[in-house]
């Protein structure tokens, strides 16, 4: 299967280790993965801030780049939610009928990583080894837009050595929300503090998730507060093996 | 002023909704209604659910057979420790036991507010009971009383027949031959949770709800 990796702009720039992990993981599972260097951003930041025209130009780019792909894998729940929930509206409002048709044909082939593993490849046990105490933060887009359900848990549950600790108030937002975190910095910080309290209470070494944007938010607070724990994208845990353990940054 | 505002508002609405349905009733009939309309419980289980719900609301519930009704009413009245009661128009005379003081509301010469306010309780029939939510429905017809009668007295004794109990709210609506002009749905005594979400029973309406469930469908009341 010829699969395209859409790494997303912030993973590319700030979290390359997540991208590397996706590559190692999928190659291990026998997936032929392509990375089109023409890719940039899905347009989420613009759409969520109210810049619809700009968001549409990113959206058009995305469809143009991937219309011939067999499958597009995206290790970010909010970017997939952008494509699935917001592209149709943008195309209906600003695009042509032809563009709309191309989008409709592409949409069923765009997968968030855990969806791709479970729904498309049909694997839960990816042969990973990660001997740590881990809690899972369910990003809002993964939970309520993509309806990932227990997919991430099923994948993590099969990781050898991994002890999965449940997180209280799982469905409550961490307060990131893109530009919300600076436009409403104080409110966002209050939400973050509440979330961090729940995460720290798990006593986990790592907080994982399907979206580095939330994890960047949480990780930034953990680092500021010397919380004694780190964030790690689920791809890095799933890529981790005895011989090649996960890349973890400071 | 108002007439022109009426026109202005309606014009704005009509301009904004050019696709309004020419056949309103047909468009209405096509609305999706996939929710549960008919309950699945047996008549007996339904009545038991009604009793359970009423008790969750701290209502007193007494079961009886039709031939025990008068005696049961008298016993509940006596047990309430009260003496002066309101009887709505159309309340069966045999429900009004002689040892108590009855203030009778008549259609043509209704009781003044002060008389109702000074009564200690009221006895009524009901139109329907809804088991799912433990709701007693009054249509304020004969025997159910004007709305004020079940509002001012602090204690409400309500006689509900098993045959009047439905399981779901939609079943109640299907029992209404036509839309009633007046309805009060009572689901437990008046309550508030406005102070720190602490539920306090009895704010302005009757503080005590007492229900007699008459097993008029041939079923036997369970003893408890």
């Amino acid at each position: 299967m010829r699969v395209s990796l859409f790494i997303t702009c912030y993973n590319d720039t700030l979290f390359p280790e997540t991208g590397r992990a996706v590559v190692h993981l999928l190659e291990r599972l026998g997936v032929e993965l392509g990375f089109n260097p023409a890719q940039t951003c899905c347009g989420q930041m613009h759409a969520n801030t109210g810049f619809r025209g700009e968001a549409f130009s990113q959206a058009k780019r995305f469809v143009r780049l991937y219309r011939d792909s067999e499958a597009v894998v995206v290790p970010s729940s909010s970017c997939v939610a952008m494509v699935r929930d917001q592209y149709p509206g943008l195309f209906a409002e600003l695009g042509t009928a032809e563009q709309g048709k191309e989008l409709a044909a592409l949409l069923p082939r765009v997968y968030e990583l855990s969806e791709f593993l479970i729904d498309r490849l049909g694997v839960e046990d990816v042969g990973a080894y990660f001997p740590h105490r881990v809690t899972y933060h369910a990003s809002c887009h993964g939970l309520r837009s993509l309806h990932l359900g227990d997919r991430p848990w099923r994948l993590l549950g099969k990781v050898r050595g991994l002890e999965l600790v449940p997180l209280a108030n799982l469905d409550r937002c961490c307060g990131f929300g893109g530009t919300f975190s600076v436009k409403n910095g104080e409110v966002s910080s209050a939400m973050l503090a509440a979330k961090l309290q729940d995460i720290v209470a798990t006593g986990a070494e790592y907080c994982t998730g399907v979206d580095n944007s939330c994890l960047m938010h949480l990780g930034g607070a953990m680092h500021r507060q010397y919380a004694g724990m780190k964030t790690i994208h689920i791809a890095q845990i799933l890529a981790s093996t005895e011989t090649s353990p996960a890349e973890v940054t400071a | 002023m108002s007439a022109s505002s009426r026109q202005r508002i309606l014009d704005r609405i009509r301009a904004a909704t050019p696709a309004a349905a020419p056949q309103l009733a047909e468009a209405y009939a096509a609305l999706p209604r996939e929710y549960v309309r008919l309950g699945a419980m047996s008549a007996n289980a339904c009545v038991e659910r009604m009793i359970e719900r009423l008790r969750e609301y701290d209502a007193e519930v007494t079961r009886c057979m039709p031939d025990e009704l008068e005696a049961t009413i008298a016993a509940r009245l006596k047990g309430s420790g009260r003496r002066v009661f309101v009887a709505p128009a159309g309340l069966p005379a045999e429900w009004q036991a002689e040892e108590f003081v009855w203030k009778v509301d008549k259609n043509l010469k209704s009781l003044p507010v002060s008389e109702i306010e000074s009564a200690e309780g009221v006895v009524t029939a009901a139109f329907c009971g809804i088991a799912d939510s433990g709701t007693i429905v009054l249509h304020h017809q004969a025997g159910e009383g004007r709305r004020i009668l079940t509002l001012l007295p602090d204690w409400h004794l309500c006689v509900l027949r098993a045959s009047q109990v439905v399981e779901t709210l939609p079943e109640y609506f299907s029992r209404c031959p036509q839309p009633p002009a007046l309805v009060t749905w009572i689901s437990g005594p008046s309550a508030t949770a406005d102070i720190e979400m602490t539920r306090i029973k009895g704010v302005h309406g009757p503080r005590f709800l007492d229900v007699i469930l008459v097993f008029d469908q041939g079923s036997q009341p369970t003893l408890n």
Partner: protein
Amino acid sequence: MSHAVGEHPVLDPAQAAPFPQAALPVLRNPQLRKNVAHAIDVIQDKRARLVAEKTDWQALRAAGAAIRDHVLGNLGAYLVQFEERCTAAGGQVHWAADADEARRIIGEILREEHASEVIKIKTMTSAEIQLNPFLEAAGVKVFETDLAEIILQLGEDEPSHIVVPALHVNRSQVREIFARRMGIEGLSDEPRELTAAARNYLRQKFLGVPTAIGGANFLIAETGAVAVVESEGNGRMCLTLPRTLITLAGIEKILPRFEDLEVMLQVLARSATGERMSPYTSLWTGVTPGDGPQRFHVVLLDNGRSSILGRHTEQQTLRCIRCAACMNACPVYRQTGGHAYGSVYPGPIGAILTPQLQQMRHAQSLPYASSLCAACYEVCPVKINIPEVLLELRSQVVEQERKQAGRFFDPIYMGLRVANVLFSRAWMFQAAQRVGRVGMRCFTRKDGWIHSLPGVGGKWTQTRDLRGMPPQTFREWCAARGNAQGKGVA
């Protein structure tokens, strides 16, 4: 004022501070935040349990949304039908294009009634048109009768929630207000005793004041009936005892038929208070001889509502049945409470309703008062896709703002414009990554993290660190790997 946060909350959208600023007093008030969190935790918990027991919950939501959409699409016909049936049943229907007209209509009715006092059922619509100050200025004494509204009225405070408006006030604060304003000595802070104090305070008013003002949960077009859902019985008192009743209702409150209540009553109480049914639901039709008020007026209020009609995305806003489930579920509301929204309608529904009622002339910060987590949409009993409406309103705000000269240099606007250019060509994006890496170096400490940033970035670093840019982007790694191994990922 009961919550001692400096200044009186401003709920007039034209006067209120933008949301981020208005939220600050609450964020600095731990007692207030605790009161809010406690109250919504209790309701949320009860709601979740009662929704879970409904196997047909999603079907009820779908029916609720469909009924409300059908009403909105045919609002003109249904309003005329309601007017006709209500009038035939002895009611008098008035139409108010805006708040000012609604106040004048009500003022005139009260003058005809020679009313010097009125008793009131909780109605957010009356708070929307700021009716109480108008009536007081006209010499009419207003007695709120809902316990929460009494707390606010006597405490000279403002509502912070549409179902439990005084949820930000705790028992000791209520005790203080009641003791002071009702002149009761030795009052304890037991909710039972405080509730009894309110009962005694109001009993004579219920029996003596001949005029009442209330709202409506639903208006039934088919019959001209009005339905009110409540818990305390103060509503029944106001609907039954006075000689004259005035109902103020938004034009969108219509339901086609009586039996539509079989959907709405099932979803409303569960969503609002976590009950299967509210203790009292009352329905009346015009005037019934011998039973209840013999003079009955309905004031149908537009006040910006018709301007929301007809736009596919935004029109969802008017489906709202005011259950407040969205604010109870909202992680932003949880932190800020209601006053920060600068409107009587707080929370997610307020964030979309208020700016639209203001026809986007005020409250432009509200569509941004959300992290778009969609918890509101998930719980909404009539399926209002609030995040979708928020995004639509954000784009309208941007349309307004980007024309303003001062916005050109706004860092967020500049950043998004620049980003748009960079994202349009991969080589430019890659160049920007390189420039950014160099530029970020001077902010990055030895541990590889950024602890402090200037400007907008400072909003981030005031509470969080930011990981510095790694030495190699993913695309650089791919390119290097492709060159070295001549395989994959290229």
